């Protein structure tokens, strides 16, 4: 459904993505992993259209979308959950869920999306997306928005960050439910083994390049060896 052909991206003279070639098939659950600074978030932003690739082609269902705007890509069925959700003074949780779904949601529908991410609609639906919400709450609202958007391809950039108080299992349940309901593909950028475990396929990105595409068993050992930490820390961590 999504194909990246020889994608390169350079910013401030630094080549961040180097000749990326990959295909994401329909209804797949893909995890992109790799060390910090390997280009994972940049790759997601190139797919969403936030960054224009320096060279290469992006195809969605065979259509060349390389030069389409963010809006056009969103309307064609790409969704993107930010690593650091944006705050909006004045816009409420309900406003954003309505924008995401493209319709005026009934209370019960909004309640479904919010309860899936562990938030009570009665308490949250009219809250403004301001600094009064914690980072974890914003993160869960961001995930609820993407669930409401029902995209063919949804990319989550480190969705687990900052949601410690909410169970991992619930987060995974949200992804599985979304996957089942939309019949779309889900791409998750993550370091978390529990998330990597449920992916159909793992993509390991190292220094702006695809180092390996394969199963968890094939990719995880490479991830550990590509990590920049010292051997003692590796031993303690893993």
């Amino acid at each position, binding site marked *: 459904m999504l194909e990246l052909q020889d994608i390169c991206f350079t910013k401030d003279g630094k080549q961040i993505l180097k000749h990326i070639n990959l295909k994401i098939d329909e209804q797949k659950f893909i995890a992109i992993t790799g060390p910090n600074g390997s280009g994972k978030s940049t790759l997601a932003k190139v797919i*969403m259209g*936030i960054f224009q690739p320096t060279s290469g082609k992006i195809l969605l269902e065979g259509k060349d979308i390389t030069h389409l*705007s*963010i*809006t056009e890509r*969103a*309307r064609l069925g790409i*969704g*993107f959950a*930010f690593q650091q*959700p*944006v705050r*909006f*003074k*004045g*816009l*409420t949780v309900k*406003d*954003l869920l309505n*924008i*995401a779904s*493209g319709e005026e949601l009934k209370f019960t529908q909004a309640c479904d999306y919010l309860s899936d991410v562990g938030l009570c609609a009665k308490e949250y639906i009219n809250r403004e997306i301001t600094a009064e919400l914690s980072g974890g709450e914003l993160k869960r609202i961001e995930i609820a*928005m993407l669930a409401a*958007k029902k995209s063919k391809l949804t990319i989550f950039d480190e969705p687990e960050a900052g949601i410690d108080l909410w169970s991992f299992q619930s987060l995974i349940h949200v992804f599985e439910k979304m996957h089942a309901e939309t019949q779309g593909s889900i791409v998750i950028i993550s370091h978390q083994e529990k998330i990597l475990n449920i992916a159909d396929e793992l993509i390991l990105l190292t220094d702006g390049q695809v180092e390996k595409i394969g199963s968890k068993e094939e990719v995880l050992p490479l991830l550990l060896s590509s990590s920049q930490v010292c051997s003692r820390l590796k031993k303690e961590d893993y």
Partner: protein
Amino acid sequence: MAELNSMEKHMLKQIADIESVPMGAYNIRENGKGIMRQTTANIDIVTKQDKPGIDIHIKENTKNESIHIPVILTEGGFNDIVYNDFYVGKNADVVIVAGCGIHNSTCQTAEHDGIHAFYLEEGAHVKYIEKHYGEGDGSGKRILNPETIIHLKKGATLEMETVQIKGVDSTVRTTNAVLEDDTNLVISERIMTHGHQTAKTIFNVDLNGKNSSTHVASRSIAKDNSTQEFISNVNGNEECFGHVECDAIIMGHAKVISTPKIVANHIDASLVHEAAIGKIAGEQLIKLMSLGLTEQEAEEQIINGFLK
């Protein structure tokens, strides 16, 4: 009683959200003259003898009643100054809706300066809603200079919503408040300016009473070549709490000046001021575009939400 014509109805809808004669007490003023008035058993409206305007007397313990005092200007070359004084009795709880709409199709200036004074007796509560609006295709300026004077006696509270969204070329909006013991004043201001408009807001609040508190929140959008100035002076003269919040979005070549001043004259005065001015954040636009809105739609959503 005279009937309202369609222009009058349209202007009333804009400033007071009513399409015809409102319920409860009211006084409708057009081009310097009172055209309609109604009093109730608890609310009396009396024309001032010494200067233009009215005195509104609200009996003590009056509950769940409303007073509408909209002003409409439909002629250019007119400078209307009016003094409206509200005397709100003990423990009364009422809603007051004011506002001025100018429809100026002429090349001459139309100006309205409304001076509203609120004297709240002990335990009284008032919700005061004020909207200012201008329209008309003439080159004449539309000018509004409202002044609000607030005196809160022990235990009284006043919530003020003041909105100016469109069409006013020049405005200086002044609010002076004096708070006694156990009082609370909440002010919420929304302003949008465009073209070459100018808007200046001045809030002076004296927290004189023990356990008095105020929360002033101003949100504004300055577009094109417009200029806005926000000035607040909150004086904590007793054990009190004051919070002033000023947020502005600038667009085009607009200019916004924010001058906060908080003065603590008492060891137990706790005063906070927050001010932020900036353009719409690029990441806000990107987020909404990634949900399927165009850049223009995203901007509208952000502005409408901000001024809600």
